[in-house]
């Protein structure tokens, strides 16, 4: 394999190290191309079928609570693409409890002269979510094609919203990993925020009761990275009365959430006590 060894005199920068780890991870996953293809297809089909469920509701009732299928498709595509990006990057945080804390191998990461966040990002660059990503993108484009009044600014706002959404979901995964310092094993309850977040994000905010709306606006800024940017991109007025321009700024909340989770992470690492070996 070319270029996998490095003379010890040269040190790698952070991004260089990450590229190296990501490259190794991709090579490793492609070692079993059959498994990879089956898993990616399974991922694609599963997520596509879940849109078929929403479409069936639309088909039967004529609208999704008064929303047209184009708008719902854009929402659905946005949240799935954002989550797929976070899933690709954040695998190390997802398995953190079982593979690092319980086994005590987190101690070894602490010995390395690099940020633990960087090292865990490099745990695996997961290719499997590419199925969800492609499917989300497919539904997103179809939604833009179907929706009335698509704005040209969507070309800027939607990628910005995807970045904000990916940052938010990555923040959830980091928070979940930080929780493992207390619980040791990973807690599946956090799936409520990841998979459950995707589930909630694919419907318009107006469909939910007030407690859930507040939760996915102020606790987990899901509405800020999905609902408002979608309204802005489609020039759709908000039935709840927020001005439309808010959607151009709100994805920043995803990054703010990530920032808070990184602070939590650093506090948690500072208080880490090894489980021993």
């Amino acid at each position, binding site marked *: 394999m070319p270029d996998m060894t490095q003379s010890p005199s040269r040190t790698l920068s952070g991004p260089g190290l990450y590229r190296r780890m990501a490259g190794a991870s991709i090579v490793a996953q492609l070692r079993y191309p059959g*498994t990879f293809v*089956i*898993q990616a*297809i*399974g991922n694609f*089909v*599963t997520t596509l*079928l*879940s849109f*078929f*469920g929403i479409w*069936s*509701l639309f*088909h*039967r*009732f*004529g*609208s*999704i*609570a*008064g929303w047209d299928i184009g708008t719902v498709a854009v929402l659905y595509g946005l949240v799935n693409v954002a989550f797929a990006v976070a899933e690709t990057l954040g695998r190390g945080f997802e398995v953190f409890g079982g593979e690092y804390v319980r086994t005590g191998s987190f101690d070894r990461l602490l010995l390395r002269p690099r940020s633990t966040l960087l090292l865990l990002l490099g745990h695996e660059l997961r290719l499997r979510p590419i199925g969800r990503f492609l499917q989300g993108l497919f539904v997103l484009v179809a939604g833009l094609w179907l929706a009335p009044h698509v704005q040209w600014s969507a070309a800027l706002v939607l990628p910005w919203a995807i970045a904000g959404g990916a940052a938010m979901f990555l923040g959830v995964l980091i928070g979940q990993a930080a929780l493992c310092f207390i619980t040791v094993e990973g*807690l*599946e*309850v956090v*799936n*409520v925020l990841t998979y*459950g977040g995707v*589930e*909630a994000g694919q*419907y318009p905010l*107006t*469909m*939910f*009761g007030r407690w*859930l709306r507040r939760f996915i606006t102020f606790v987990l800024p899901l509405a800020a990275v999905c609902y408002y940017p979608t309204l802005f991109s489609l020039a759709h007025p908000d039935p709840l009365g927020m001005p439309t321009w808010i959607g151009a700024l709100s994805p920043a909340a995803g990054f703010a959430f990530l920032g808070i989770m990184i602070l939590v992470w650093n506090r948690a690492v500072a208080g880490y006590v090894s489980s021993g070996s």
Partner: protein
Amino acid sequence: MSLRPYLTAFGLQWKIGLRYRIAVVAGLVAQMWFGAVTLMAYASVYHAAPDVQAPLSLRQAMTYTWIQQSLFTLLPLGCLPAIGDAARTGAIVYDLLRPVDMWNWWLSASLARLLGNAVPRAVLLACVAGPLAMLVGLGAWSLAGPASLISAALALLSITLGALLSATIVMWWNILTARTLSPLGSYAVGTPLAVLLSGMLLPLPLYPDWIRPFLLAQPFAGITDIPIRIYLGTPIPGGVATGLGLQIFWLTALTLLGRLWMRQTVNRLEVQGA
């Protein structure tokens, strides 16, 4: 032929399912969340289109969702984990050496695993979504009772068949695992099929009309969809007898074909490991 070895296999997997109490609570929280999101979505879809005559009323759709959520772990999402491990390590040869009928041996373990996971969760969620929701004033969102005493009894019979059917489908995943020597394939295929075709994603009666006969006739409908329809008293074409008949048909067909496939797989099984 003694039943004892099969009962032992059943008892062991049943206890494994009951061991993880925190997982049960964690699962409950997740199911409540997904249930709440789905229920609110259905409620606003139904309210926005009051003129549409849906095959399920809103109340029935909600009850359907609660029962479906509570029986999530009864679905055949993949192979029995113990068999996945055995296939990977090569320990599967020990199962081949046992003086028991291997189909029944694996089937009793698979059934116990499904029931050990599903029964505590279902009872807990039924209490929370039923009486408890009524008490805190969420009666409109709660799990409704059965249509009648007879439909309750028939639903109980039907869900028993459903559990057996699910274990039989898990057997197919087990054989697939033994064949490919990896449990991953069975999960990649099994989870999407089970989630979509059982009605977990959307109640089967709510899909477009042209596809509904096919959805009722496929084997996954027999696990939870048919028992729930009987419980709710929603009409099944041909009545309850069709529902139970479909379940028995699939149970028989999948058992006979599965045994054939298993014999063929065992004959050419190559075991890895030492």
